């Protein structure tokens, strides 16, 4: 059996942002197994200070291009809570469709374009254009469709334009919504069924690894929680969103420019697998069927299965958005202006499930409607401690394999979390004005 091992993957590929995997074993003792975060710091909290409430979501959207919509939604909800801006039911339904679309888009991008090459033992999606052309084309069509949900409702898929505090600057027409609904119900369902069929044949390469951890996500009693809900821990139950600091408990480690978090154990997991485990009962039947196809049942303790949970969520989001579009079309789009007259100024805390997990924004506004202090806690930051803990359990289990195979399994593990490293680099200090 091997006694020494030294792995250093500098700038891991096929993930968003910059991270290194470092594993070090000497004479059979695992000294180090961690994901180092080397993304340059970005200082968003300092950038927000003094900015008017009209500008805040425009700035926080730029925390991450891939989850820009999720950051906007959370940002707008926090601003609305701080300023007492009520939103209409129509705004809420449109935002829920946007979140469905963003989850759909991001999960497709990760599961099919970034993770699937691992199942086939190739270095990127580009060789698959030759070998698996039909699937790549279907995946591209799905990604286009998901982006079109964002474009039709918010004006742009990356850094949405129309979403502002209190509502939308412009509304989609009923005709546009009908076209979207028809595309989702027809080509969307068909392409997704085909893709699932093909991918389910490839997943026997997913490592059989288990480590039970604490799973944290939003939970809502009536729906699979993405836009709204309470904080839910698989270990300790429900908490109001306002109590998020008691759940996240950020701490600093020397090897990462983003903070780590812990709650009931040394680490916890957020993202598709946490949502799946905590909210399985609220998934659409079509999505439950897809999970069954992959042998994925709740609770699942294999973090590699996060990629599969993402695909299950795509099925769910397609079905949910079809129903929500149907509802709006039947009811008709009302011509509303955004409500931007603050009722008060103060602190607002909001949480949304973005593709990579639970996200928190917390703002305090002064009486001029400008930011006094801000705090954002990002999903990837919350997963970092859990990734390190997984590596510490995984490495001794596979130590007999070749160094190449160990490296590949570690890369796959980190990739399975779909880390969004640009987002995670904040280290925002919490500075509450009492």
């Amino acid at each position, binding site marked *: 059996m091997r006694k020494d091992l030294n792995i250093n993957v500098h700038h891991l590929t096929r993930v968003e942002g910059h991270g290194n995997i470092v594993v070090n074993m000497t004479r059979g003792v695992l000294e180090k197994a961690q994901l180092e975060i080397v993304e340059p*710091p970005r*200082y968003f909290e300092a950038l927000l200070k003094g900015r008017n409430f009209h500008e805040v979501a425009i700035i926080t959207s730029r925390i991450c291009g891939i989850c820009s919509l999720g950051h906007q939604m959370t940002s707008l909800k926090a601003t609305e809570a701080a300023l007492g801006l009520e939103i209409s039911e129509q705004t809420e339904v449109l935002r829920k469709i946007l979140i469905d679309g963003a989850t759909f888009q991001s999960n497709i991008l990760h599961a099919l374009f970034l993770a699937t090459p691992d199942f086939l033992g190739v270095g990127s999606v*580009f060789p698959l254009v030759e070998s698996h052309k039909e699937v790549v084309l279907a995946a591209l069509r799905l990604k286009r469709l998901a982006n079109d949900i964002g474009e039709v409702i918010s*004006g742009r898929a*990356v*850094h949405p334009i*129309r979403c502002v505090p209190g509502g939308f600057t412009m509304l989609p027409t009923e005709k546009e919504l009908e076209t979207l609904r028809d595309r989702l119900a027809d080509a969307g369902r068909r392409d997704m069924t085909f893709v699932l069929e093909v991918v389910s044949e490839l997943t026997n390469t997913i490592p059989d690894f288990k480590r039970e951890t604490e799973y944290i996500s939003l939970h809502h009693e009536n729906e699979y929680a993405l836009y709204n809900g309470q904080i839910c821990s698989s270990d300790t139950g429900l908490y109001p969103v306002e109590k998020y600091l008691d759940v996240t408990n950020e701490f600093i480690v020397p090897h990462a420019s983003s903070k780590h978090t812990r709650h009931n154990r040394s680490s916890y997991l957020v993202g598709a697998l946490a949502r799946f485990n905590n909210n399985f009962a609220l998934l659409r039947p079509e999505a439950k069927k897809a999970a069954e196809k992959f042998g994925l049942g709740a609770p699942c303790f294999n973090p590699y299965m996060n990629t599969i949970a993402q695909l299950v969520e795509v099925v769910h989001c397609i079905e949910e958005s079809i129903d929500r579009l149907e509802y709006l079309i039947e009811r008709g789009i009302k011509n509303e202006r955004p409500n931007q007259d603050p009722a008060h100024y103060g602190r607002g805390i909001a949480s949304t499930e973005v593709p990579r997990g639970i996200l928190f924004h917390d703002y305090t506004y002064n009486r001029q409607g400008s930011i006094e202090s801000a705090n954002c806690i990002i999903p990837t930051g919350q997963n970092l401690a859990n990734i390190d803990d997984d590596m510490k359990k995984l490495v001794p289990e596979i130590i007999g394999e070749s160094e190449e195979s160990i490296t590949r399994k570690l890369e796959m593990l980190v990739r399975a979390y779909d880390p969004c490293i640009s987002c995670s680099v904040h280290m925002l200090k919490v500075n509450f004005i009492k």
Partner: protein
Amino acid sequence: MSRPRVAFFDFTSCEGCQLNKLNFENELLDLLVHIDIVEFREAMDNRAGEYDIAFVEGSISTPSCIERIHDIRRRSKILVALGACAVNGGINALKNLHAPEWVKQTVYDDDKYRFPSIPAQPVKALVKVDYEVRGCPMSTPEYLHLFKSLLLGRQPEKCDMAVCIECKLNENECVLDRGMFCLGPVTRAGCGAACPENGQYCTGCRGLVSHLNINGAINLLQRHGLSKHESEKRMKLFCANDFV
């Protein structure tokens, strides 16, 4: 050029422009036939040596970024800056408006010396940039147009007129006349007035026009109800480096 070797690099940014590069799903495969993508960390494992075209996203904001951008320049025949962060510093450059010590203290507190950081600079502040695609995010049609021009060996057009002109051509009601704030009069066009088209004001993400009348612009915004201070502050949102 025969199947040029193309590479993509990212510096300090949100990677939204990288994402936009994958967001023209209908044309992506047609384009791939004509190029060899030799390096693209976000999407593939390969690392390569030299490039005919290097696309660079993000600002230069740490000491190690400086080394890396010089290295990329040495190995590239053509270098294109993609998006506001790379072209003029974008949102990252907002921190340049404050004392660096204050910024680090506010965000990192006692750990402020742990992560080295320098003022956020555009790529052109360090190396020669041959072409640029502006905007936050960069506009996909503009990027495709530039890409095709380079493949055909023709000079892509540069746009240095105000967003107002495109907005008027689209027959939009003036955003300022609707009682909103707008940076259309001072911002470079090329986006098709994307934000006013969607009922929103122009945030200035494409940078300022070269023939800027800054006092005139501030006067105009003051006439529409913003203070001088607030007008300047909003103009700096994506263009902070033009004011430091």
